[in-house]
């Protein structure tokens, strides 16, 4: 089923603030086996010019993906979420995410395409801090694979 093109450009309300904690950053860095000191040691992060420990570059996806999930599960959009796979992912950083940040995500549907029966949705997640400054933009391409013939 082709998706409704009128959803292109639709922006969803900002998510509640997510507070980035030092120990959550540590947990994530350990899970990807990354021992860079800027993720766990405040002094090491400060020596690089950061006010607190910073998060690895892909950390913010946990937050933006949850926000994107609300978009793709919008019943009016009609995407078959059970068939969704992750196609592309891109981040553009204004600055690194850091401990103490209170981040909100505003998701916008950038594009909707249909290719060989697959529904393709591009979602932009703009991540802002408490001061309203843009921190990072995440671009997520989700592909709902065509349903098999019955």
């Amino acid at each position, binding site marked *: 089923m082709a998706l409704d093109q009128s959803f292109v450009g639709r922006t969803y309300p900002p998510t509640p603030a997510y507070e980035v904690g030092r120990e959550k950053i540590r*947990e*994530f860095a*350990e*899970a*990807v*086996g*990354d021992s*860079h000191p*800027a*993720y766990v040691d405040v002094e090491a992060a400060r*020596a*690089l*010019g*950061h006010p607190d420990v*910073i998060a*690895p*570059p*892909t950390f913010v*996806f*946990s937050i933006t*993906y*949850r926000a994107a999930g609300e978009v793709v599960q919008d019943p009016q959009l009609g995407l078959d979420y059970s068939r969704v*796979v*992750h*196609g*592309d*992912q*891109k*981040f*553009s*950083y204004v*600055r*690194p995410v850091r401990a103490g940040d209170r981040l909100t995500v505003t998701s916008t549907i950038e594009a909707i395409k249909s290719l060989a029966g697959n529904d393709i949705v591009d979602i932009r997640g703009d991540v802002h801090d408490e001061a309203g400054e843009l921190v990072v933009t995440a*671009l997520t391409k989700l592909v709902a694979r065509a349903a098999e013939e019955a």
Partner: protein
Amino acid sequence: MTAKVSYGSVEVGTELPAQSFPVTRATLVQYAGASGDFNPIHWNEKFALEVGLPDVIAHGMFTMAEAIRVVTDWAGDPGAVIDYGVRFTKPVVVPNDDKGALIEVSGKVAAKLEDNLVRVDLVAMCDGKKVLGMSRAVVRLA
């Protein structure tokens, strides 16, 4: 931002130190917990087979997180990464044994841009297959 590599010291074609990242089922369980992505295709073999996968596969975002380490370890400051994007082309299949899979990542400077920025193109391989496509990062050097 304090990269330890200077813009003047790199050329188009400069190779970054390559790295290999092992991934086992235990790695995936740990990543699921840390990231909050509990999709069963990343830890439940029965489910993965039912949806047509060859076996449990790694989170694409796990592979993306590993690949950028070639850039952040080289640049010295992870905060120097300005832009990072990948396409998930092939899954990283993770068998249920003590060896798991190995993600091999290499990178080289593909372009020198303005303002001390360089573009690094990454290649991520697993089992002889390219698992990421269009894998590129823009980094601000010193």
